[in-house]
């Protein structure tokens, strides 16, 4: 059941992937339906929370503070988690994280693991590494199970299988669980997953998870979930391995006050998600006997080093920006070529890749600002997008056609004389392309309307516009020409 992972290093440019996905009517309907439902629920619950903006501001400050003092809080977390009987491991990159986890699973004596949905383990492509080492991983979140059994890829941070509808899910379950008579009601499908997984929960002795927050002062872990599969994995096995990005640490218990209010309302449009689990280390007689946390860098320190991109790491993975994004809502998540899709993916992925890959992602946005508006920790995603675009331009150098054109236009803007010349030149250049709609005949009761020229085809970089849109031709007189004449009259 090995799948080709979403890998920013090999993914096609956003435009190309998006173009292909835009042709998938079923996917677009599924994505639209799911994001509509979550957005509507979210909007209602945010409106009832009168201190929402104060919660956001507090959460922003907590997350920014934690990043500013990340070395202190990771050290504190490690000390307290270790004191509570856990073991901390550090991983520079995906390969090191894979090696550590494979080693720990083998050490636990198990050739199988049960897994809680975790974007971080998707990011490091852990399942493929486990499989290569002869270890089978069972995804236990319903959506992740659908993805795994369907040999698919996650397309959303919170609802990874939102691009599939019930008929498609039924087909996957019928085939892979060998259930020819499976019904197509969502409850039938959830019930099939319950029966399929219950046996795994009771039998498999090693579990792998991510985490929503690490709490420095208690050495604590916080995991929020909906289905109870998380609690099964956290409490029934003998060994638990949590792979966690270094940015997930928060200083104190009290920091959860705003965070656990903002997260569920933003993520699933619930006042509180069905389950929150909070604990630290190992507790005799309750839960796993061995507890490991793997702290993952994998490009995060690179993001941290950029003072303008750093706020990206404040993210608490609620996916509100994905649901609100008009681009994501058209394409779904796979177009982003990374497990982190949508606006947050468009800023996180290129930065995690040291700007060497995914250079089209910062442009996968109309900068409409819907993402910033809904972000519970106030990440100014449009600002970061613009910042990354500047980096891409710097990396690409001067001699691209786009760069040359932009420089020429910029030069025109620096002088009134050149600007007027450019306006005249533009009118001349476009003239062969303009189709006149001037009325050749006089039609009873119809007067000639003012604008009469349209462009239906443009060359080169501008051709994308006229694929689906006409462009109004330039009027014969600019505003400043009119103003000058008016002054003289």
């Amino acid at each position, binding site marked *: 059941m090995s799948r080709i992972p979403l890998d920013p290093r090999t993914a096609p440019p956003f435009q190309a992937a998006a173009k292909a996905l835009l042709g998938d009517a079923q996917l677009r309907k599924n994505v639209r339906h799911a994001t509509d439902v979550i957005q509507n629920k979210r909007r209602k619950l945010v409106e009832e929370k009168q201190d929402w903006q104060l919660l956001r501001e507090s959460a922003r400050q907590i997350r920014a503070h934690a990043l500013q003092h*990340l070395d202190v809080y990771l050290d504190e977390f490690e000390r307290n988690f270790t004191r509570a009987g856990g073991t901390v491991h550090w991983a520079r990159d995906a390969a090191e994280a894979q090696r550590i986890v494979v080693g720990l699973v083998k050490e636990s004596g198990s050739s199988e693991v049960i897994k809680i949905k975790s974007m971080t383990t998707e990011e490091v492509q852990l399942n493929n590494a486990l499989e290569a080492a002869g270890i089978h991983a069972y995804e236990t979140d319903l959506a992740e199970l659908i993805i795994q059994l369907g040999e698919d890829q996650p397309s959303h941070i919170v609802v990874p299988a939102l691009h599939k509808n019930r008929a498609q899910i039924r087909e996957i379950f019928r085939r892979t669980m060998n259930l020819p008579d499976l019904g197509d009601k*969502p409850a039938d499908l959830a019930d099939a997953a319950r029966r399929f997984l219950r046996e795994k929960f009771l039998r498999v002795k090693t579990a792998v998870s991510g985490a929503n927050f690490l*709490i420095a002062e208690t050495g604590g872990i916080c995991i929020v979930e909906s289905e*109870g599969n998380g609690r099964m994995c956290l409490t029934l096995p003998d060994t638990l391995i949590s792979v966690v990005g270094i940015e997930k640490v928060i200083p104190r218990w009290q920091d959860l006050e705003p965070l656990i209010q903002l997260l569920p309302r933003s993520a699933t449009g619930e006042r509180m998600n069905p389950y929150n689990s909070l604990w630290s280390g190992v*507790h005799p007689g309750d839960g796993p006997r061995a507890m490991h946390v793997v702290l993952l860098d994998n490009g995060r320190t690179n993001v941290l080093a950029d003072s303008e991109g750093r706020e990206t790491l404040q993210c608490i993975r609620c996916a509100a920006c994905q649901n609100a994004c008009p681009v994501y809502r058209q394409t779904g998540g796979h177009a982003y070529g990374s497990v982190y899709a949508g606006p947050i993916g468009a800023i996180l992925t290129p930065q995690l890749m040291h700007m060497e890959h995914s250079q089209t992602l910062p442009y996968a946005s109309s900068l409409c600002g819907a993402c910033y508006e809904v972000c519970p920790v106030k990440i100014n995603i449009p600002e970061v997008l613009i910042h990354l675009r500047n980096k891409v331009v710097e990396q690409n150098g001067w001699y691209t056609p786009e760069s040359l054109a932009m420089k020429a236009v910029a030069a025109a803007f620096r002088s009134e004389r050149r600007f007027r010349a450019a306006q005249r030149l533009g009118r001349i250049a476009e003239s062969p392309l303009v189709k006149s709609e001037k009325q050749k005949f006089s039609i009873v009761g119809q007067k000639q309307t003012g604008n009469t020229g349209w462009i239906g085809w443009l060359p080169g970089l501008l051709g994308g516009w006229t694929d689906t849109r006409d462009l109004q031709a330039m009027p014969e007189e600019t505003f400043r020409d009119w103003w000058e004449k008016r002054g003289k009259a």
Partner: protein
Amino acid sequence: MTTTREEILKRIRSAKGASSPEQAASAYAGIERGYQSSASLARKEILHLFEDRLHDYDANVYHAGASGVGEVVAGILSGRGVHRVLVPDGLPSEWQQGAEFVVDRGFSSAELDGFASVMTTATLGIAETGTIVLQTAPGQGRRAVTLVPDYHLCILPAGRVVETVVEAMRLLESTKNIPTTFFSGPSATADIEMTRIKGVHGPRFVDIVLVGEE
């Protein structure tokens, strides 16, 4: 050879400048916390809100006087046809009426799976979110006992119900190292076409008995 730990910490420090626990503590004190932190409703309204929220999540709510819990429990269990109930150590024996009650003695996962029902008390209730807070404590047991059985009957003294999440977090501050589980209604998923389906892996049926204060 430097360890990975040292290398990552070095990267972090060179990325944003080194920090010290003292610097962190002093900056931490400046974080604004202007959000609502205390109750805004009268006691009676809080309990009504709590009950409303629990109903939203398809949990049933019952009431009992301090001395009548056992009787109410017996009624609920007989209504559901439950004959055998798992209980953690430390649950008041006068509550245990109307069925056979088996105390958890560290059963294996498979043994836990043999129980269809569990009865516990809880540390707190949170009205605004309809949340119940469980901790590894007498009367509540280890985390697995309230997870594996399909039916959870939870007895909560009404005096432990607070209005807001923030109040709850502050009350939990002194026990923040103990394993703590918040549950809000029965386990649920919306992974299939965003349709909320009750009960995936955790208990699918939850009843709450609120004790006193009414």
